[in-house]
């Protein structure tokens, strides 16, 4: 078990460094085991340094930066041991347009190299436009949800409009 954990750590750490730098357009990040030399007892510490900024505690990162760093870590775990499905519920809410674009680009790359299927819940037009297919959830009868498959050419507006 110790060996497997160490191997997983090495792989996740390697992927995390690459994905972090790609999402932030620079900077560096890495993982480290602390508090014990035995991986099974140790805690996992995350070090992140956005481009041009000094290395500091994770708590000082902004809302958007934390989201990007978390996304890089989740995808790094993915590439280590791919899950068949991944669900992302409005992870783009704290992001500005430029970062929404970077996350979508990374999603498209991960889809190319793995069999993972993604369900992406979003209110962001930029994200909607990058999906392979869209489902709308409407409540034309108040309190009752209905699933509708949206023709990608169709307008998204009717879905986001007020009831």
């Amino acid at each position, binding site marked *: 078990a110790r060996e497997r954990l160490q191997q997983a750590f090495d792989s996740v750490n390697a992927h995390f460094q690459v994905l972090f730098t790609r999402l932030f357009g620079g900077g560096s990040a890495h993982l480290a085991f602390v508090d014990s030399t035995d991986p099974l007892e140790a805690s996992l510490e995350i070090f992140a340094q956005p481009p041009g900024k000094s290395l500091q505690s994770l708590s000082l990162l902004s809302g958007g930066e934390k989201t990007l760093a978390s996304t890089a870590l989740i995808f790094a775990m993915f590439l280590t041991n791919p899950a068949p499905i991944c669900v992302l519920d409005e992870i783009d809410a704290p992001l500005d347009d430029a970062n929404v674009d970077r996350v979508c680009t990374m999603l498209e790359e991960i889809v190319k190299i793995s069999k993972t299927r*993604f369900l992406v819940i979003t209110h962001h037009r930029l994200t909607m436009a990058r999906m392979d297919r869209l489902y709308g959830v409407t409540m034309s009868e108040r309190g009752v949800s209905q699933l509708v498959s949206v023709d990608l050419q169709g307008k998204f507006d009717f879905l986001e409009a007020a009831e």
Partner: protein
Amino acid sequence: SNFSRLRLHGFKSFVEKSDLDIGPGLTGIVGPNGCGKSNLVEALSWVMGETSAKRLRGNGMDDVIFNGTTGRPARNSAEVSVVLDNSERTAPALFNNTDEIEVVRRIQRDVGSNYYVNGKSVRARDVQMLFADMAIGAHSAAIVSQGRIAAIINAKPAERRQVLEESA
């Protein structure tokens, strides 16, 4: 194995039978506030064996059963099923003899839930093991529920190690 379809019937706001086909790549889910998008995510966690009502935003597990609107009465049961495409026969031995595996969870108000795999009644543990062997599950880091994306970074270092163990 791939996830190919999620079906809800009576689960939270999905009182009518609703099917979500899960295709390859990126499937977007959109709609106004409060329409039921996050309920879909919870349906997926629930059928994979979620045991905590709190993680499904409820006080008790019966809160997942449709509890009525001003126009419709509450229901007394709910059911969610997920269909896995097992044509590559990669499922654990116990369930590996069919092209499709359908996992169903059904709950009855004040009674509790039952699980079925391809129609056969199984224990919650069997379902949890089936998904754990596929590196997925109700508490997997791959299910990022609303507002939780930064939770990994904000978690205490010891909790983070547990998350890493999942990808081992």
